[in-house]
Structure formats: C-alpha cells, structure tokens
C-alpha cells in the first residue's frame, strides 16, 4: 500500500494560539483515517493545511506525491473536499451546483446517481437556501465526490445529521473505501471514529496524543469491561470478588457493576450468580469505548 498523505512536523500559529503544534502522521492509501478531538483541537487547521487551503508556518506536507502549496491545481483535480464551513449562492439549485462543480474537473461521475445515493434526488430543483442543514451537508459531500477523487477529505462529515442519516453516511464512506479510495476525515464523535475509521489520531491542543486502530487504542488502555445487573434485596457478593479476572465490584443502589478483564467475564459472572441462587435482571455488558480512551488520555470527557 502506498502513502496518500505524509505530514511532518506541521506547525500553524494564529497570533498566540498554537493551532497545530508539531504534528506528524501518514495516511495510507485505501484506508479511512480519522482525526478526532474536541473543539479547537486543531483538526480543521491540520486538514486544511493538507488540502493546501492554509499555508503551514513550518513542516512538510505531501499529498498524493504532490506539494499542496506548489502543485495546488494538479492536486485539487484529484482530491475531493468537504469543508467544515462553506456555502453556496442562496438561490443556486441543487442540480445546478452539481452541474457547475462537475464542469471544473476533467474527470467526473454522474451527478444524478450521487444525489440518489445521498437521498437528495427529490431536492434536485430546490434552492440551496431552502435546504435543511443536513441536506446542505449532504450536498457538500456530493460535491466532494463529483470528480471521483482518489482521496476525499471530510471535515466533520456528520455534524448536523440525524442518527439515521449519520449511519447512511458511514455506509457511504465505507463504500468510498471499497472502491479503493482513501478517506481522511475529522470528527468529534468518538463513536464515529471507532465504528468507521481504520486508524484514528487523537488530537488535543494541536498535538497528536495517540494514533492507532480503534481496537488497539482501546486495548492499549487496558480498560476494563463492565457487567451491570440488578438484584432485588440483599445478597452476598463475596464469591464474585474472588473470581479470576474480576478487579472490583461496586453497588449503586440495587444495581451492581462488576469490573474485570478477559473473554469469560460475563459467563463467569452469570454462572456464579446462578450457583449462588441470586435472582438478577437487566444484565448487560459495557465494553470500553473510544470515549474511555479519550478520557484516559486527556483527563476530559469529550462531549457530543
């Protein structure tokens, strides 16, 4: 696999603010690479430096083998860009936007099929100003795909979308990867990073604090699984505490939380409860998620 994006020691300052503070990473061809972090972490600044829309103060950027500052026109033919903040003329119609943007590229795909795919087919004749926020977002994603790009940049692709549209968008992005393209996206939804990305860079205060596959990030944390259930009345939890793999047991009112590691944790807990004759209900397990990874790395909760 080749390398689609290579960033080395990138810096970008805005007066006193170190928006990007020494960032290095590579994006491999054919992967979905995600950059996740809280508001103001430097995601947009980084991605726009890579796209060639902002000039880094220091560091090198190579995209598809090109220098985004020097070979901007050549590069922009081959990439698709969805900006976090952009607009279109208020009275421009959806089909006109696609028609116009496709005229900028030598190579393009069928705009009608794109609209169909993004659920905008019935909005073909709607003016941009009359679209809802989610529809605008989907139109911008259509525009990012109109030239059948090798590499797609999506800055906050599902912000403003409802859960159903968000899931549809994930499927769409996976489809892009299946066609052999590369995706570089940013998000502040940990779930999105976990479910969608092959590799994730966690960025905070302009620095990458972790970069790996979501599974590895979660595993490296050594975070515990949780088994949660409810028992009516009094019972003795000593046998549970003694079980292999269990690290601690907590009670919150009638609810019990068993923390532990290992494959057999749930089976072990259920078996022990049955042997003790304890009647439990509402049992569920909670896996550690990227939220926990972020919390562990930054000491903060990333709010959705």
């Amino acid at each position, binding site marked *: 696999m080749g390398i689609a994006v290579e960033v080395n020691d990138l810096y970008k300052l805005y007066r006193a603010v170190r928006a990007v503070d020494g960032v290095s990473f590579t994006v491999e061809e054919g992967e979905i690479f995600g950059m996740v972090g809280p508001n103001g972490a430097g995601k947009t600044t980084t991605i726009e430096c890579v*796209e060639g829309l902002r000039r880094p103060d220091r560091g090198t950027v190579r995209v598809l083998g090109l220098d985004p500052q020097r070979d901007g026109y050549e590069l*922009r033919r081959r990439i698709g860009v969805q900006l976090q903040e952009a607009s279109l003329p208020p009275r421009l119609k959806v089909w006109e936007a696609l028609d116009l943007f496709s005229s*900028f*590229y030598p190579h393009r795909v069928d705009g009608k099929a794109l609209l169909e795919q993004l659920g905008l087919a019935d909005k073909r004749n709607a003016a941009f100003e009359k679209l809802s926020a989610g529809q605008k977002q989907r139109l911008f994603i259509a525009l990012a795909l109109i030239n059948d790009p090798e590499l797609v940049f999506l800055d906050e692709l599902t912000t403003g979308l409802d859960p159903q549209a968000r899931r549809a968008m994930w499927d769409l992005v996976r489809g892009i990867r299946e066609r052999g393209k590369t995706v570089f996206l940013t998000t502040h939804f940990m779930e999105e990073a976990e479910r969608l990305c092959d590799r994730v860079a966690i960025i905070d205060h302009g620095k990458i604090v972790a970069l790996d596959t979501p599974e590895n990030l979660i595993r490296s944390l050594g975070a515990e699984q949780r088994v949660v259930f409810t028992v009516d009345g009094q019972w003795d939890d000593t046998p549970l505490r003694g079980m292999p793999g269990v690290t601690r047991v907590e009670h919150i009112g009638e609810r019990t939380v068993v923390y532990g590691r290992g494959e057999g944790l749930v089976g072990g807990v259920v078996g022990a409860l049955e042997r003790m004759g304890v009647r439990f209900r509402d049992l569920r397990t909670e896996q550690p998620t990227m939220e926990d990874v972020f919390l562990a790395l930054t000491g903060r909760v990333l709010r959705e």
Partner: protein
Amino acid sequence: MRGFWKLLLVQAKLYLREPVATFFTVIYPPLMLLLFGAIYGNKPTPFFGGRGTMDVTVPAYIGLIIVTVGLIGLPIGAAAARESGVLRRFRATPLHPLAYILSDIASYLSMTVIGVLMLILTGAIVFHIRFEGSVASVLVGFLLGTTGFFALGYLIAGLAPTARAAQTVGMVLAFPMMFLSGATIPLEVLPAKVQVISPYIPLTYVVSLIKGLWFGDPWSQHWTEIAVLVGCLLVGGAIAARTFRWE
C-alpha cells in the same frame, strides 16, 4: 479556463433570480424612459441643440445602468460571495482564480448589456430616438465606462469588511452620482451651483463620453473622459487586486 462558461451562465441566472437587481438593471430604466417620454415627448428643441428630450436621455441612461450594476450589484455580490464562504468552496476546486474573476466580470457585463439593449429598444420603438454616431465607437465607449466602473466596484468589495458595508458604500456613492452626473437629469437643467460638483464625479465622464459618441463626436473631443475612465480602471483594478481575499 475550464468552468468559465458554466460559471458565467450560473452567475447570470443567479443575477436574474434577484428581483431587485433585475428590476433596477433591466426594467427600471425603460420604465423611467416611458414615464418621462409621456411627460416631455421627443420633439426637437433648441435647448438640446435641436434634439428631443428622449434622444439625449437614452445615452445618458446607459450611465445609470452602468453605475447601478458597477457600484451596487457588483460590490454586494462580490463581498457576499466572500463573506458567505462561497469563494472558499470554489477555492477547494481546480477552478482557476482568473476563470472565476473573468466569469464574474462577464456576468455583470452581460446584465449591463441586457439592460442597455432593453433601454435602447424601448427608445427606438416608442420614441424613434436618433442615433448619429458609429456603433463601434459607442460600444468601445460603453466598454470603457463599464470596465472602469466595475474596477471601482471590485475596489469597494475589496476594501469593505462585510457585504453590508459594501452595499452601504456602494449606495452612498451611486445615488448622488446618478443625479449629479447628467445620467438621470441633464446637466444643462441643473443649477450652476450644483453643476460645479459634476467634474468630481466619475459617472459624469461616462455619460458625456457615451452621449458624445452617440451623436457622432470624434474621440479626440473626449480625451478627459478617456483619461479619467482609464484611470478608474487602472487604479481601481490595482487596488482591487491587492485587497482581494478568498475569505
């Protein structure tokens, strides 16, 4: 120049979708002509050197259309495209900045031409206005006035921090110009005290150049106009280019 024609077409369509802009460019000047024609008619009068009121009004109104598009429509449009983030989005495509700016200019030029054609047609059909010059000369004079004023329009857009500011500045400059340049009211009927302001108004030179060429003046009689309008084009264009920004 990929994208130029499509963008030109889209920009022209968008202009025509703005009812106010379309009204003042295409409908208002012929309407005014009909109104004043109904009042004054087009009888030759010694006051206008043997020409009728409509004969001299039509070439003067061309200046009215130029200032409306150049100092009101254009600065608002250009500043709004920047402010709203439309330009940012274009910048992320391989569209060449030159293709963008040329199609922008061409779209405003097309609107001006449509407005002028409507005006001339109305004058010709309803009032049988006289034309004593050469079409080529008038066309060149028109283009000189238009490009000079477009340069001023881009200058306003470049210097104005917001679209609203561009609109305010454009209107504050355009409205006095319309009335003190001879574009709406012939200079001859303005009081002498007001006439002293006219030489300081760029639109005066557009009106006198087009009017002069319309009635067959040689170019050599209009060096001042040419100098002023070329000056507007060069100075306005240079400052506009320096103050241009994508966002």
